[in-house]
């Protein structure tokens, strides 16, 4: 493990004893800097996934915890082979047999996909307008986009219940101005979920879009105009293609968590709508079937692996460019 800090301190020739001590100290320090967060994340982020996978292969039992241990590391090799025989894919078979799960996965991905697209449609003009705003105004606008993100997710979703209900504020308003005569049924439908996701995740879409649009050199647009391109066609030929990194980052930031979303379908979608995050929650809290819940989580993770890797890749690339 080489690092700049250690090599710099090593090159100080002065007091032999002191520099050796300092070198040792800084060597330990730089190792600790890496090890502490590394181990924390290993133990609290990566190991839990292994456990989830392990439990998804075990049997449901009526006990606490409500599953039979699938692996006992204390029993040595014999215990390992025994345990391997015990492992079962029953939970996964169960998931494929009941169409509920399959439908929940499909519907989650579709809902997340549509919502992501809608968020892009709503977010792009906002980010574009912010990037074109006078430079003195931009920090304030940025602040205003971030601010809702600081207020509770739960509260923001909850606020929509009062608006979307049949006797809620939206219907009162629309009927008051005479646009409709019958209240619209929005709450407890997929429309409510779309609204909820677009609303809650909008800042996640606007921020990466804004940062790519803001960095863009205005002389590129001027050059396109100068070469005979109308403003609208310059947008599609220059601005939009160049903002693609922001579009991709924003879409992934919305899509991935939206697939596993629980609060929004639970509060706004009612009992009729199907999303996998809620299915998992129900398996765990209502049916107390931890192994099946683990299997649901494992499959959900597999569904999301590709977008998550794409997201990592985009992040790493953006970081390289900033460097």
């Amino acid at each position, binding site marked *: 493990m080489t690092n700049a800090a250690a090599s710099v301190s090593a090159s100080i020739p002065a007091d032999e004893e002191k520099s050796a001590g300092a070198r040792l100290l800084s060597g330990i320090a730089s190792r600790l800097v890496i090890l502490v967060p590394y181990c924390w994340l290993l133990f609290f982020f990566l190991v839990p996934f292994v456990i989830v996978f392990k439990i998804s292969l075990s049997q449901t039992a009526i006990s606490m915890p409500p599953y039979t241990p699938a692996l006992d590391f204390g029993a040595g090799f014999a215990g390992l082979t025994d345990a391997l025989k015990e492992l079962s894919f029953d939970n996964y078979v169960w998931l494929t047999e009941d169409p509920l799960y399959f439908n929940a996965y499909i519907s989650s991905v579709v809902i997340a996909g549509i919502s992501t697209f809608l968020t892009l449609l709503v977010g792009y003009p906002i980010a574009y307008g912010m990037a074109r705003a006078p430079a003195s105004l931009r920090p304030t606008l940025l602040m205003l986009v971030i601010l809702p993100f600081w207020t509770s997710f739960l509260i923001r979703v909850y606020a929509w219940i009062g608006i979307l209900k049949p006797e809620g504020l939206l219907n009162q308003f629309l009927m008051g101005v005479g646009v409709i005569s019958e209240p619209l049924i929005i709450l407890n439908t997929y429309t409510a979920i779309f609204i909820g996701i677009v609303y809650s995740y909008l800042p996640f879409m606007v921020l990466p879009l804004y940062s790519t649009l803001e960095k863009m050199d205005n002389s590129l647009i001027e050059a396109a105009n100068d070469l005979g391109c109308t403003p609208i066609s310059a947008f599609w030929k220059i601005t939009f293609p160049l903002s693609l990194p922001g579009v991709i980052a924003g879409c992934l930031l919305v899509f991935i968590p939206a697939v596993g979303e629980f609060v929004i379908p639970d509060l706004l979608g009612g009992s009729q709508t199907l999303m996998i995050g809620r299915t998992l929650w129900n398996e765990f809290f209502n049916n107390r079937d931890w192994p099946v819940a*683990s299997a649901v989580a494992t499959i959900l993770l597999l569904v999301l692996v590709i977008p998550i890797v794409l997201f990592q890749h985009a992040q790493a690339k953006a970081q390289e460019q900033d460097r």
Partner: protein
Amino acid sequence: MNPTWTRFNITSIVLGFAFLYLPIVLLVVFSFNASKLVTVWGGFSTKWYASLFQNQGLMDAAWVTIRVALVSASVATVLGTLAALVLTRYTRFRGRVLFTGMVFAPLVMPEVITGLSLLLLFVAVGLDRGFLTVTLAHITFSMCFVAVVVQSRLLSFDRSLEEAAMDLGAPPVKTFFQITLPVIAPAVISGWMLAFTLSLDDLVIASFASGPGATTLPMKIYSQVRLGVTPEINAACTILIAIVAIGVLAASVVNKQREVQRRRDEQAAQRG
């Protein structure tokens, strides 16, 4: 005025911000509604705030939430800052790819997965669910947000400041505390605030990780919301929003004042 800022741009910003803020504003307004029907205005009243403070269950939950948020934000800030240092300064070590992955994945990981996996970990190691487990869970996911915030500041940090300190004889650890940390302090502070509010707001992970006796405020609110919208919940939400808004605004005012002061100092220095 920037000539490229068209009416279309202004309209989309105004509509976008109306969309972002109107629901919150309505929620706050209706917390002062005298009527028990949340959506029918029955005159101004603060009675729901009074009944809120008499609701012992909510008050207990609030106290738990604040303690969890204070502890988890502080630990997450230390760990997240370290992680940010690793991301920006140690570009070459074994397992770096895995490390980067573990920092960025929790940002987008659906909360139900994080929550379930942490719970199963706590059960596997035999940790009783309660205050400690919620705190550990919150540290884990909020440290990644802190890492991202601090990392972006470190990327724009002028390395020659550190090199100058070391050139003048400060060893690396001392350099970090005397030079690096003061410079990146604003990012570390906003990282702490972000971790604090994330912890304050979290429902899903807390529901998995907490046990009896450690019910957090969002869990309490959630269980009441499921029964229907009540003005009392509106009042509770308004207080939470107010706390966060005051915190964020205070921070930005302090920042702005410091900026103004700095500019004034610079001008004074220019004049000699």
